């Protein structure tokens, strides 16, 4: 029951946060609202016994990525005048909801048909750092390795695109 309550709370927060992200005009407000969602999601991961993910969500997502985004928002020193004037935003959002509805319903229909077993409490080992780590380095070595390439590329990209270095003559 307690878990259900927690879930409900986190879920409501997550949805509200997401809705805020969509609705707020200023990106800063949106980012803050999004952080709420991320943190709620972290809570949900915890409820799902994903301990490592719970931690990573907080550290990497809510921590690193969001602070980077917020930093850039601040860095660009966005004035309200820089922001797009979205008079028809609401129309678009409602229209968007209408368009997305079939997708959502389709997914919901799928989920509904899933024969999911009851969620019995698992052992303590589940989702722990060690277990996930072992898995990561045994079975999932390749993706783990190639993610490094990906990060390297994004590094170069950031340097090339946003850097000051002039093109070689």
């Amino acid at each position, binding site marked *: 029951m307690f878990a259900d309550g927690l879930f409900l709370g986190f879920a409501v927060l997550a949805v509200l946060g997401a809705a805020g992200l969509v609705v707020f005009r200023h*990106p800063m407000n949106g980012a803050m609202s999004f952080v709420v969602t991320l943190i709620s999601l972290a809570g949900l991961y915890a409820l799902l016994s994903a301990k490592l993910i719970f931690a990573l969500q907080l550290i990497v997502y809510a921590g690193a990525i969001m602070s980077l985004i917020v930093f850039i928002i601040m860095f660009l020193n966005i004035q309200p005048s820089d922001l797009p004037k*979205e008079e028809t935003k609401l129309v678009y959002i409602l229209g*968007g909801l209408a368009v997305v509805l079939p997708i959502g319903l389709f997914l919901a229909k799928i989920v509904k048909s899933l024969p999911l077993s009851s969620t019995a409490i698992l052992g303590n080992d589940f989702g722990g750092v060690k277990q996930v780590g072992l898995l990561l380095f045994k079975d999932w070595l390749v993706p783990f390795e190639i993610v490094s390439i990906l990060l390297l590329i994004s590094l170069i990209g950031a340097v090339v695109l946003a850097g000051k270095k002039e093109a070689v003559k």
Partner: protein
Amino acid sequence: MIHSYLYLSIILFCLGIVGVISRRNVFTVFMSIELMLNAANLAFVAFARVHESMDGHVLAMMVMAVAAAEAALALAVVILLHKHKSKLDTNVFSLLKG
């Protein structure tokens, strides 16, 4: 019970889509995409719980890493855009058309 997680994931995913297609603010659009990735992550973790295998966790981690890389690049692009036009409106960038 797990169903609820998945429904939540779907709702977040759909909200992300709505954010992408209805907003013109570059930041909001990128964050909406992050929201969609998070929705996917939630689904991964929820399914991991169902299958009682931790593969889903690993997958979620990978998605996070990709999301981070993407975010870094996206922010670089945002800075570039801002340098050019000092605007964050995606509609401003419509020189290429027709």
